[in-house]
């Protein structure tokens, strides 16, 4: 037993001491979790994100009895006001001075948008109040035609197609405008709130006890860590050790391949455990993750994932003739297997021929199983039993190929 433990220890020590390995297996997943949570974790958390937007209200006609443009402006001003000292408002609102040249102001704000200093620019056109009022009065002869409304009096939202922030800000503005429109219709009696489809908006964030973003991303990052550990770590270690004749030194001793495998597997699983612990602790203590991995089915799924990816690594080692070929094969498989698993975006809408890969990909099943077991994903494209069967089939296939094809010593 001592030999198995010491082989495991050697495997761990090598991985931890080698900077490149350490980066990819421990630091990179931690880095990715941090980046994803910091960037995307704030989106949707009320009070923790703010967009710089510009509002240019050009419809300042005093004749308007119902100043809809002022109403819109006041809503945005409200959203640009902090509710308390601890909370940041949703918008930082930029509006022209009283005596400002509106054309010049608009031009300069659009420049700011292009430079990424504004998330969106909203322009309320002249005649907007009249257009809205006209549309509310049935059979009014003075109403402008719809084509005229479209040409002259539409609200205009300018956004930058190169900025994610701009895209989010625009979506929020459109939602606000839709809500304002609905309320106008209700107040004018043209729409009954009883007939409306009721909906509530819930912010995804810590403040109101809902699932934080980090809970969604953490299972995927943990699996990605296991995946890279298996896909690159296993063939890398085995093939480089073989090609540098490190393994040959073992084979001239009484050590058997099976005992070496036992030690290697133990070391690999321990590394996965270390990786998991680090990511979990970071998720909980740094980013407020609330998911619980302590349930038996979750633990078993984590072990199944680590073993499946390790087996996959052995499969690559069996098919590659040299260490470099093994790394190239791992690189080729890495991207499609990760991206066609639902790790970063949903796979349900993909074309049928790509869905074949999704369904053959063990990562898809393990990821969905893990997300389901920790309660961050309810809907599924996979039947439950396949979440276990498909990875087991991959383990079986990999073991068969490994036992027949893997060369444990350099060939003459």
């Amino acid at each position, binding site marked *: 037993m*001592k*030999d198995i*433990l*010491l*082989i495991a*220890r*050697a495997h761990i*020590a*090598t991985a931890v*001491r*080698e900077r490149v390995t350490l980066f990819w297996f421990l630091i990179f997943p931690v880095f990715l979790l941090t980046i994803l949570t910091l960037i995307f974790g704030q989106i949707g958390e009320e009070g923790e994100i703010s967009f710089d937007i510009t509002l240019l209200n050009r419809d300042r006609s005093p004749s308007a009895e119902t100043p809809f443009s002022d109403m819109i402006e006041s809503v945005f001003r409200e959203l640009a006001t902090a509710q308390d000292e601890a909370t940041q408002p949703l918008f930082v609102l930029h509006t022209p001075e009283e005596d400002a040249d509106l054309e010049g102001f608009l031009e300069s704000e659009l420049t700011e948008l292009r430079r990424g200093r504004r998330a969106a620019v909203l322009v309320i056109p002249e005649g907007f109040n009249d257009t809205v009022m006209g549309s509310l009065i049935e059979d009014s002869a003075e109403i402008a035609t719809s084509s005229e409304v479209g040409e002259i009096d539409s609200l205009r939202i300018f956004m930058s197609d190169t900025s994610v922030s701009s895209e989010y800000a625009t979506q929020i503005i459109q939602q606000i405008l839709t809500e304002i429109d609905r309320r106008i219709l209700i107040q004018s009696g043209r729409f009954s709130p009883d007939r409306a489809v009721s909906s509530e908006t819930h912010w995804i964030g810590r403040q109101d006890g809902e699932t934080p973003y980090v809970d969604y991303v953490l299972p995927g990052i943990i699996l990605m860590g296991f995946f890279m550990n298996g896909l690159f770590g296993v063939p890398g270690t085995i093939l480089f*050790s073989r090609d*540098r*004749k*490190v393994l*040959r*030194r*073992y*084979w*001239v*001793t*009484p*050590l*058997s391949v099976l005992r070496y495998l036992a030690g290697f597997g133990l070391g690999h699983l321990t590394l996965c455990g270390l990786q998991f612990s680090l990511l979990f602790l970071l998720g909980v203590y740094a980013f407020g993750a609330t998911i619980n991995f302590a349930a038996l089915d979750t633990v078993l799924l984590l072990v199944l994932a680590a073993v499946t990816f390790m087996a996959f690594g052995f499969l690559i080692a069996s098919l590659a003739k040299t260490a470099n070929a093994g790394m190239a094969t791992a690189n080729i498989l890495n991207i499609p297997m990760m991206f066609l698993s639902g790790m970063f975006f949903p796979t349900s809408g993909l074309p049928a021929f790509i869905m074949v890969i999704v369904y053959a990909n063990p990562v898809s099943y393990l990821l969905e199983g893990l997300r389901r077991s920790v309660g961050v994903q309810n809907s599924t494209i996979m039947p439950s039993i396949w979440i276990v069967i498909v990875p087991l089939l991959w383990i079986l296939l990999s073991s068969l190929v490994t036992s027949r094809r893997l060369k444990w*010593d350099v060939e*003459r």
Partner: protein
Amino acid sequence: MTDAFMMKVSRLTKHYGETRAVDGISFTVPNASVFTILGPNGAGKTTTLEMLEGIREPDSGEIEIFGARLKRVTRPVKQRMGVLLQDGGFEPYLKVHEILRLFSSFFQNSLPVDDVLEWVALSEKSKALVRTLSGGQKQRLAIGAALINDPDLVFLDEPTTGLDPQARRNIWDIVSGLRARGKTIILTTHYMEEAEALSDEVCIMDYGKIIAQGAPKTLTGDLGEETLIEFHGENVSTQAMDQLQRCCKATRSDQMMITLETEHLTETMESLFAWSREHDIKLRDLTVRQPNLEDVFLTLTGRRLRG
């Protein structure tokens, strides 16, 4: 063990495709001796050793080791063997003592790691990573790993290849120490001075066959009582060479080294000096020596070991 030999090899054969790497060789390795397999690159030394170490399976033949006849080397036999591979590596990010501790765990009985470290003069490097060691230190670590189980039979495959003279001397000291402890050592080398300095018995291989076997003194003694005189002679004309060959047995090698063989050293030297004065030839790198294993190989094959 009551047998006088540690290992007996009979009709051992190994092919790589069409190439017959080892061609039905047989030899016996006496107990507590240094048995050296000498030969040029590609002679079949390493393949022979790999079959004896259990890395490769022979196509045919038999190995009798520790009193048991085997077709291939088994794990119980490996418990009593220590192997230094020609070019095996170590995990570069493990420490020296970790490597030895790891290897000691593979055996039922092993020596204390600190003792082995002292034996191979690596105590001060105990906590150093393998990647920081010099070539000589790595080779001493490899020897330490081969000796960790206090083996009865030690295989050393080209232990000094690529090492500087000082590191080579250190390895020689370790081999001599092993022999003094009563270990049996099977050594391969293509350095004849190493074979002569360390070996009790030498087996010379060429093209997969054994072409000579015996104690170094016996093998060189078989060449007769002649003394060899050598010098560089790249500017020696054919006419001058003919004249030299008339007074003594002279040959010119590919490297333009001229060798004279004589049983009458004084007379031959006088003739050589007269000849050099007459033809105005400088006797560069002139040496006088007794025949060695290189000469044995040259005599048997017409080629030099390190051609």
